[in-house]
């Protein structure tokens, strides 16, 4: 059977989304087609609002509806500790832990010469001026533990050294609640290499 063109277009658009294959896209499109108008409108509306209403915080580059994000404008947050992350989505992950009460700075990527991502294309100058002008005493580097993340951490550590702040890096190692015997060898190997004295 020939698929009607509007349905085909919807399938094509949906399958461009991450982790959506052709079959899932088809199922979603058919599901939408059979939904009532109200639901469809509400979905369209929410998608349109995403880009229209959400921008970036002028201080930390987090997602924000206002000029300052909810975290930067919250008086209860500890303004002396700053956590540096790659992307705004990383803030969501750290916030979910409820372990961190400081503020953030989003780099907008990591150093990757191959992808043309350099110091200039990241929010590093902004980070420096923030650190110079604020009451921040401690910086935590929370970048991904891959080659580019590590190299960016090394770059920042060196760059921030003259500011005489307390600089630390999140530990990489074994997952909590995971038994040693079930962790992959490389993780254990790295955890042993990066052991800390007690």
């Amino acid at each position, binding site marked *: 059977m020939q698929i009607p063109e509007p349905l085909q277009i919807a399938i094509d658009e949906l399958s461009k989304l991450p982790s959506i294959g052709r079959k899932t896209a088809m199922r979603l499109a058919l599901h939408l087609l059979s939904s009532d108008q109200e639901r469809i409108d509400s979905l369209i509306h929410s998608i349109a609002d995403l880009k229209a209403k959400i921008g970036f915080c002028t201080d930390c580059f987090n997602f924000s509806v206002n000029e300052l994000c909810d975290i930067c404008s919250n008086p209860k947050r500890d303004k002396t500790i700053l956590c540096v992350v790659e992307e705004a989505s990383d803030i969501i992950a750290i916030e979910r832990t409820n372990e961190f009460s400081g503020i953030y700075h989003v780099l907008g990527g990591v150093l990757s*010469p*191959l992808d043309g991502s350099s110091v*200039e294309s990241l929010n590093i100058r902004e980070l420096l001026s923030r650190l110079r002008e604020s009451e921040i005493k401690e910086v935590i580097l929370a970048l991904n533990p*891959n*080659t580019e993340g590590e*190299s960016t951490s*090394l770059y920042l550590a*060196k760059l921030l050294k003259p500011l005489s702040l307390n600089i630390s890096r999140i530990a990489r190692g074994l997952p909590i609640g995971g038994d040693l015997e079930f962790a*992959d*060898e490389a993780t254990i190997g790295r955890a042993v290499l990066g052991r800390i004295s007690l």
Partner: protein
Amino acid sequence: MTLNKLFLTNFRLHENTTLEFSNNLNYIVGGNGQGKTSILEAIYYLCTTRNISQSSDQEAVTFSKKYFELNGNFKDLTTNKTKVFYDNESNRKNYFLDDKQIYRASSIIGKFPVVTLTPSDHSITMGSPADRRKFIDSVISQSSDTYLKILMEYNKTIKQRSSLLSQLKDHRSAGLLQELDAWDLMLAKNGAEIIRHRINFLNDFELFVKEAYHNLMEEVEVPEIFYSTIQISDFSKIEEDILSALEKRRKDELIRGTNLVGPHRDDFVFSINGLELKKFGSQGQHKTFQIALRFGQFFFMNERLGRKPIFLMDDVFGELDTYRANKISEYLKDIGQAFITMTDFSNVANLSINETDRMINVHGGVAEYVS
């Protein structure tokens, strides 16, 4: 560990071949292009999920067929059923262990250890430093997942750094130079781990190679492996040594826009009685060294993994004189299970063959037992 049974379907010349093997030596005899090497290729697929050569999976499918399937039963303490299925249309290869699909090849690494000795091994002693690094790295990786991960991270660092250096060649800027400092630290950190692993490995491995060489050649020939890397002051200070080497070469690196320091430029120099093999070795010494390296790998893995790997030998006897062929067949008795291809039976008289060994004749993709 041994492979007891093998089934090949639409695999090169083998439309339908079933084989039962000896736990000891399995001699597979056949002319060129008759399908004997395909049997080794099939075993390698089942052990590693990968192709033994650089050829594509699709090339292994019998002409005019749509898929190939390999099945093998390994026996250690228990029996493991393995299967590789490839079909042309999806161009996908699926691996099954005891009927369960395995999605990550890395979860199979080390489970069915295998050592190969093939004519292409000549590149290890005669080829470029890259060929030798590839050999050494593959042996270390087979017994250390950590090493494999570090190696991948190091290679990424080298690529990133090379891209940055070529940007700097066109346009020098203070900002980019600071970035280079950070990549220097990354290179030093991962590079030092690689060098440490290689030093530790060679300390052990060289002993195994020496012993193997001695078993193959009773004459007084002493093989040595010299590791050629950056200038090292102390085992615990390799990171600093790399950094100071980088500092010395920075000017050159910036002018040439390329990486000039690090273990990706290392070499391993083989010698016999103090004479460099590559410069002074005879054809026979090269061959013996290649064989000793593979036997060394076998016994090294046996010690590390606590299990005997399967040994695959493709057409080694053809290039050897009677003395060496006989020595190898003697030595093979200690090996456990091995699969050895030969082009004809003329060598058989020189080999010491046991009752438990098996002789298989392959002709036009059809295999039959000779003994």
